[in-house]
């Protein structure tokens, strides 16, 4: 059984500190402490700055003696995070986990990972290659993904879809086109016209 007393305390501790760390952990649904949602702000001075990233957290039965399972639900362009699934490649979430770590410290480590990518141990080979070979483009793409997916203020994807639909494209195609180009409306339009 998950140690819910500890999880409860962790959540309290985290919310007390939210002003300073910006890190938030809340239950995904009421009354189920085994499934949580974490939120981390993109670190300042990185292409992720200004974004807010959501992370799905599933606690295994033996938590805290086994690591929590974490996965980005917000799309991120980063060598150690899968651009497809959001899976995170981070040692403390695997064999280097210690029961003395908490959800907050784990999320802080994820945040640190955003500022210090390790392209030599990649989760997403495409991103890692781009990071190593063409850093400028990498920064551009990462910033763009942050703008498109990690900002509530930015134009929502739904509105873009709506506009493309108004131009006469079917909604499903418009949505997938936007997804493949990472949310850029013009690129999506080009894509739709050529396809």
């Amino acid at each position, binding site marked *: 059984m998950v*140690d819910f*007393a*500890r999880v409860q*305390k*962790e959540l309290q501790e985290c919310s007390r500190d939210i002003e300073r760390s910006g890190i938030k952990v809340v239950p995904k649904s009421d009354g189920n402490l085994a499934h949580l949602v974490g939120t981390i702000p993109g670190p300042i001075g990185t292409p992720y700055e200004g974004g807010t990233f959501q992370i799905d957290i599933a606690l295994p039965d*033996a938590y*805290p*003696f*086994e690591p929590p399972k974490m996965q980005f639900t917000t799309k991120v362009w980063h060598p150690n995070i899968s651009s497809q699934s959001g899976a995170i490649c981070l040692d*403390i979430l695997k064999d*280097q986990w*210690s*029961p*003395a*770590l908490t959800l907050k*410290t784990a999320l802080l480590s994820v945040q640190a990972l955003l500022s210090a990518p390790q392209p030599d141990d990649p989760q997403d080979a495409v991103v890692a290659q781009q990071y190593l070979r063409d850093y400028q483009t990498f920064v551009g793409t990462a910033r763009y993904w942050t703008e498109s997916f990690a900002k509530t203020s930015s134009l929502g994807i739904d509105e873009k879809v709506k506009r493309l639909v108004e131009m006469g494209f079917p909604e499903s195609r418009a949505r997938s086109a936007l997804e493949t180009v990472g949310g850029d409306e013009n690129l999506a339009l080009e894509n739709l016209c050529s396809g």
Partner: protein
Amino acid sequence: MEDDCLGTDDEFYTSDQEDDYSIEGLEESIDGLENDESDTQWIPPKGTTTKVITQESLLAAQKEDLRRVMDLLFLREHHARTLLIHHRWDVEKLFAVLVEKGRAFLFAEAGVTLVEHQDNEPLLPSSTIMCAICMEDVPSDEATKMDCGHCFCNSCWTEHFVVKINDGQSKRIRCMAHKCNAICDEAVVRNLVSKSHPNLAEKFDRFLLESYIEDNKRVKWCPSTPHCGNAIRVEDDLFCEIECSCGLQFCFRCSLQAHSPCSCLMWELWAKKCRDESETVNWITVHTKPCPKCHKPVEKNGGCNLVSCICGQAFCWLCGGATGRDHTWSSIAGHSCGRYKEDKEKNAERAKRDLYRYMHYHSRYKAHTDSIKLESKLKETIQEKVSLSESRESKNRDFSWVTNGLSRLFRSRRVLSYSYPFAFYMFGEELFKDQMTKEEREIKQNLFEDQQQQLEENVEKLSKYLEEPFEHYDEDKVLDVRMQVINLSVVTDKLCQKMYECIENDLLGSVQLGIHHNIAPYKSKGIEKASELSACWVNKVNTSDKDLPFHCGTNGGSTEPEHPSGSGSSYESGCSSRKRPRKEGPGGGFFDLNLPAEVVDRN
């Protein structure tokens, strides 16, 4: 290592004068031979370094290594074990790291933390501490501080241990603190886990104990099925063949049946080849075509390329496609193909040649293996013959030459049968294709085959003489048979030895990749029987140790004194041409307290 107690193993390594017979000088050597081989039952000489480790002696087996490390580094047992597990029970390597990189490095690398606790003020039983794991305040007597100084509550420790043990990480359970590399004290683990999960605590103990087998290149489980429960420990030479006390003979390196002079790789390939008859399959694919209708393989037995299957379907032999029945010599109705014929013929020839080659070696290998089986029956009849002869009035009542000859026959027969798969690979194209020129290969093959042939002749002769009804012969004739058998025994032994020398030096030694084909050395006296490691001295030497995870009773079963009688035996008299260095046992070490006093005194 040094548990051979008597320190006399230098004797048996050097004493092969007795084996220096020549056929001319046979007369004077006969006595030597008989003394030499009077024990057909292979008695482990007192210096046998190969040990059987039973459930009971497993603890004793590792005690010695543990003690060496504990004594040198002034450590407690669990720290010594942690170090040894980290270094896969290689004490020499561990000491080398100590010398080269120092104590601190050795400890840190293995996760041994020895902190001098300045803050060692005893926690008052009434006080509470905050456990950083469950985030509760717990009374300090319900918390445990590890050697590394980290303190957590007992229930969190227990939970942590349970998860790790179930995860198969018993051998290296680290402290719960983040980035603390320290390995937890096994006594604490055992103590805490056994309170709530006694079964798991047992499992933990077993994992720790068996680490000595699992993580140790010198120790291997006996591959018997059903498993006899034993493990075998060898010293120095890991390329050897061993007989476990359960009777199973196996190659220590690959755990398959004893197969020298085949190398492990050769034997693996050979066994696989025999198993799936891949040559037959190969032949079928090349020589037959599946009928397009019933899919049975069809072989063409002559005639033109329009083939009809027994199911009635006609098809083109060249491309395998179904056709009509109307055809001429040059074309088949409704069909036209006919390229690459030459290619296919080449393939067919090749497959045929490979198959014949395989069959050649396989039939000889099989013939000798079958002979071994038949000759095993000979053992019983020979016993009868011997007892019959012994009951007769005769000057000569010593018939040990018969049983000795029989053992020699078995051993030589073994060598002979395994020499065929060896030759198959040595002179085939699979392993050493580009390592020899065609001429070189021919010369070497001739050299080897000459030896093989000589051995074969003598083995057959030996077999013939042993089958003679000597129990009905008169005395002179018996003496004659005796002479022949003894003579042939010596000759086959020599020939086996020479064949191994040839294989190791002239054949495998000369090819580049031969290094991957180390073979177990020839043992004139047959495959070495591992002697049981006595479990008992531990009780006497180490009674001070309170951490014995399981009790090795004084009736440990395996406590025979290790044959202190007899002077230097020549069991290693066989081929010693191996170039790999063999360490002579250093002698010293522990006294076996089970030995008679006069034997211990001799030291």
